[in-house]
């Protein structure tokens, strides 16, 4: 039976109730969960922490511009196959020349094509019941990639190349599939239709405070409050690349060594703001709007 209990996060991961419910829904219906949202809202973290806290197998497929279904599902290792199929001839030749050592196929049998199928994350996940499969940043993939997945998603079945072996999974044992996207390109409607969709909103101050608490429980509340004020102020400036969760965590990591007063002074002086602001144009803008000279700090 698929793991369909309601999961609300772990010690390290604060799962927004809306997301937790969408995730629960996807698992109950045996559909993939498609998560979109700004960078730094914890999209990728969800399946990682879920798998860890439930002790489930995790299979990750990071999508890139060259991704294709072959890498995702399985590919046939032609080189190995060619080598192994030549081995008897090679061995005969070696014997002729009086060489003792023999080449082996490493337990693979050229008669069995399945031995040469190198399974990708998808085939592995479908092969192990109740595992977790993460397809990270699917928007980076070539346009046809999501479309190629449609069949596998709706029929829960992959066909292995060459060997023709079928890897299928029942709805009950369907792995938990989480797909993340940064919306860099629109995904095909047919693909979205097969997923439960959830858009993660950027956490507000209270939630952010809890997130920070989970990561750096040792940082004083006063310091966190001051840092959050600056952080949300910066986000409101309409920067080209607004700082995200990851950035504020890095920033706090930088100031956490200092004593409380020291840390507050550092934050208010925008020290180490290079951790938050990532482009030159934004830096100039912050400088203009806040009237300080952030450049001088970012140098340290």
């Amino acid at each position, binding site marked *: 039976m698929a793991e369909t209990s*309601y999961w609300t996060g772990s010690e390290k991961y604060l799962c927004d*109730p*809306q997301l*937790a*419910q*969408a995730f629960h*829904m*996807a698992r*109950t*219906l045996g559909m993939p969960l498609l998560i*979109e949202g700004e960078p730094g809202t914890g999209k990728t973290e969800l399946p990682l922490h879920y798998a860890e806290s439930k002790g489930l197998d995790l299979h990750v497929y990071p999508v890139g511009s060259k991704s294709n279904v072959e890498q995702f599902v399985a590919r046939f290792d*032609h*080189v190995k196959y*060619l080598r192994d*199929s030549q081995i008897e001839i090679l061995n005969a030749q070696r014997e002729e020349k009086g060489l003792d050592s023999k080449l082996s196929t490493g337990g693979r049998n050229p008669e069995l094509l399945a031995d040469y199928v190198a399974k990708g994350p998808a085939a592995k996940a479908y092969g192990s019941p109740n595992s977790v499969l993460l397809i990270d940043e699917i928007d980076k993939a070539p346009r046809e990639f999501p479309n190629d997945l449609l069949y596998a998603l709706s029929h829960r079945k992959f066909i292995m190349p060459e060997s023709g072996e079928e890897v299928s999974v029942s709805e009950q044992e369907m792995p938990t599939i989480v797909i993340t996207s940064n*919306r860099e390109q*629109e995904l095909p*409607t047919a693909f*979205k*239709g097969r997923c*439960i*969709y*959830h*858009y993660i909103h950027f956490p507000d101050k209270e939630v952010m405070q809890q997130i920070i608490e989970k990561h750096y429980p040792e940082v004083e509340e006063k310091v966190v409050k001051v840092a959050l004020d600056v952080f949300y102020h910066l986000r409101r400036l309409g920067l080209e690349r607004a700082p995200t969760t990851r950035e504020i965590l890095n920033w706090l990591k930088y100031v956490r060594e200092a004593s409380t007063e020291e840390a507050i002074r550092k934050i208010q002086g925008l020290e180490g703001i290079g951790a938050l602001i990532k482009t030159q144009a934004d830096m100039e803008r912050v400088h203009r709007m806040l009237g300080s000279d952030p450049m001088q700090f970012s140098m340290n």
Partner: protein
Amino acid sequence: MLSSLPESFRAYGLAADIRTVLLLRKAMTRGMITTLGDMYNVLKGIVVKEPADMGPFTKAYYAYFLNIDVKTGETLEDAIQRSETFKQWKDTVLDEADKDTDLNMEDLVSRFLDEVHLTSYDIKEVVSGKELFDKNDADQPDEDEEDPNKDPVERELDRMADYSDLSLQELLDRLEKIQKQQKARHGGGSHWVGTGGISPYGHGGAAKNGIRVGGTGGGKMARKVMGDRNFFPIDRDALLNDNNIDAALASIKGVIEESAIEKLDVPKTIKTGLKRGGLFIPELSSDKNEELKVIVLIDNGGYSMAPYIRTVQNLFRKMKTRFAHDLETFYFHNTIYDYVYKDERRTQRMPVEKLLNYDKIYRVFFIGDSAMAPYELNAGSIESLQAIVKKFKKSVWLNPEPLRYWAGTYTIQVMQQIMPMFPLTPHGIERAVRKMNSRTGS
């Protein structure tokens, strides 16, 4: 009973169809929908496919399930307060409340929202409400006149229930029954929630011993959605601004010239050759080539153009980074005589002849209001413009001036004779690009 759902959701521009209903039923059979708030959440996961769907979805949901019609630009609170559903709900609540407690409208609306968006997750957190169904008798007529002798707490519980222990058929039957009872009141319609408590677990409850539920903020979210433009589709006929710039960018993508040439695919040749056990036959693949060469001429003189300059520059800068191709920007004031300018302050002059030396495959966008004194558009200027249009077959003018003024402005009329003109809106840009593409060749 949900058969009319796809139709009414489609009316809000959402992609709902028979599969939506089937999935919804599947979710019901798995016991995922036990309250109205669950219905909202599950449907949202199925129907909403991008943030811009959230607004229309919330509207459609309120209209279909609660008979609350949110008008464009109206806040959710106002729409709720206006609605019959809320009035009836309020009457019930006020009847039951202590006369002394002072309930203002704001609190009432919040409570209403909390009840609408109460989910089974909230309930599970607080209480396991198993015995409720036994008390909940659907056969009880949904009367306007309440029996004054009845215990108010019980009545509240009777009205609606947590359906978690019901089978699907029971659930559907039940919904239908409630719907029929309410038909009399609503005068028909497909809404199965009307008056009375929407859930027995009200926030502090009309029933005095109601349970305070923290809530997962469904109501808060719904309110936020209504007030945020980001949750509505972009108006493609609005003048270019920071909000619809991405829609404009999507329309302008069409200017990318695509060509395909056949070439030898070495990796594929090797791979298939290996499969054949060493017999190599050349494999060809078509290589797609994208080309984008654009000249943008921006009128940055005068106050009339000032509001648009930044957005236009933003648009083309995004275009440049996104597609990484040749993009040249020049400036002019009102019209072009013998020079265009390389910088915004118009200090570095560049003769038009030099502009004409660019490859003729460049596409030219003129951006300006084309409003000037008629004498400015003299023969010399018209000649320069015509020369540019003659050289670059794919030239268009994008005008931020509202379309209705075009007919009344002489210089716009003249300019339209020289080259096609489109409004500076995502939709206008799309049409301009289509026009450019249709006149290929020559």
